[in-house]
């Protein structure tokens, strides 16, 4: 038996998330442009870009895994999105959905890398190597921030964390969790691939990294995936630290606030090299994360 209401909700949330994700990407480019005193592209520019990539008349493929990588990444993004309580919809739920979402949000990078490696381009290989090292480096502070949060609220369920925050105040009002929020925000910058940690797809350095061989419809798929991923990550941040939301508008305001913090940090700092990034992650965010965990014990 098919649950038609659930199916409709899934489709609705997906369309909303894709559209808002594209608008977030547009906001990112526009805000960067305004900070650099340029006019900047229109806010719907990523949608035009995706349409153009879909309209390419030729598509180069390097075999089955190359095609499979973006699809795999997109699937993981969508699965993560469905586990997150978006306003009052939480479509799938389990007893430990915090861990599920935390690791489903990491998988898209692996999917892109799977596809990129199979193209055989040396720039892709360099980008993949850098991406995996960044992922290894950011796991430790990421885990510590989540441990502090779980210890404070005493639950793994995202919906219960939201409910507790509605009654007892947002997570960031608790001093220990504020420290955890700072750690999570630093990791968040690397998850979005924004500036101090944009070593994966360093545009002028290794020519887009893993994305160098992607073009046409594959790149359009990756753009859509990035939009969904952006929406899911900002929603995850809002749910964990900013008290969730009871309607879509409230969630949107919180997501845009999170996004703007990321944009402002990204437009100030230059890029780390890969060894600096790994050293940084294992030093300051890790120390702060341990302090947060000790404070919540």
């Amino acid at each position, binding site marked *: 038996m098919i649950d038609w209401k659930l199916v409709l909700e899934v489709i609705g949330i997906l369309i909303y998330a894709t559209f808002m994700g594209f608008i977030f990407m547009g906001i990112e480019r526009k805000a960067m442009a305004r900070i650099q005193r340029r006019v900047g592209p229109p806010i719907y520019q990523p949608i035009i*870009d995706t*349409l153009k990539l879909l309209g390419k008349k030729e598509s180069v493929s390097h075999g089955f895994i190359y095609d499979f990588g973006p699809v795999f990444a997109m699937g993981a993004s969508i699965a993560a999105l469905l586990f997150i309580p978006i306003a009052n919809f939480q479509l799938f739920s389990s007893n430990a959905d915090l861990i599920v979402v935390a690791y489903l949000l990491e998988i898209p990078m692996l999917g892109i890398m799977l596809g990129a490696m199979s193209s055989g381009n040396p720039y892709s290989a360099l980008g993949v190597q850098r991406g995996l090292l960044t992922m290894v480096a950011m796991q430790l502070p990421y885990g510590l921030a989540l441990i502090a949060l779980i210890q404070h609220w005493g639950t793994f369920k995202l919906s219960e964390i939201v409910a507790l925050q509605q009654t007892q105040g947002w997570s960031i009002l608790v001093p220990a969790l504020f420290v955890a929020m700072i750690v999570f925000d630093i990791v968040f910058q690397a998850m979005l691939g924004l500036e101090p940690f944009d070593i994966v797809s360093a545009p002028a350095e290794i020519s*887009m990294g893993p994305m*160098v061989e992607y*073009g046409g419809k594959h790149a359009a798929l990756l753009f859509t995936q990035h939009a969904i991923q952006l929406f899911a990550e900002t929603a995850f941040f809002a749910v964990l630290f900013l008290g969730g939301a009871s309607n879509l508008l409230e969630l949107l305001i919180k997501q845009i606030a999170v996004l703007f913090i990321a944009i402002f940090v990204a437009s100030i700092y230059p890029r780390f090299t890969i060894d600096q990034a790994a050293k940084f992650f294992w030093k300051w965010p890790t120390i702060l994360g341990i302090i947060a965990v000790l404070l919540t014990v």
Partner: protein
Amino acid sequence: MSEMKEMRNENDGVISYELQEFKLFEPLFKWARKKSLWIVAFCTGCGGIEMPPLATARYDFERFGIMPNPAPRMGDLFLITGYVTPKTLKRIIITYEMMQDPKYILAHGSCPINGGVYWDSYNVVKQLDKYIPIDVAIAGCMPRAEAVMDGIMEIMRKIEDGTADGWKRYRENYEYYRKNQDELFGEGWREKDARRWLAWI
């Protein structure tokens, strides 16, 4: 005009490269192509220095959706910014063939048109149009950022009315271009050089 071209394609037995199933969306895609030209950041010669003012606060081409993109697979607009030597031309041809199909070339300055100040040089390609198809050429030495912007607007206009068809001409007249390239570099240069540069393909 476009109908005539398609007719000729059918008569000559050349495959039409328009995907038939997307005919309905073609106006939408045309609009999207016009509004989102990604530049392959491969600057040859002296025109590369005109790019920074174009990209930064003064002229800001990003307001038209133009974005410098280092990966040739995603690029749409190829800028030939200045004189072209045979050594660069090999790279230009390989990069141009790596780009995916609706792709456009904008040639800056007098050098790609007729050699410019290098008219009697032994080592400069005098007429670039013999080796790869050019959509718009801007005369001048060196065209200022305003002129380059004007050239880009011309490309946008040509995309809109469908006359920016360099990629189609390259497919249809491949033998002609191939013959000219082989005359310049000698037979078998693709196997010798391109294989070495692009070992993964």
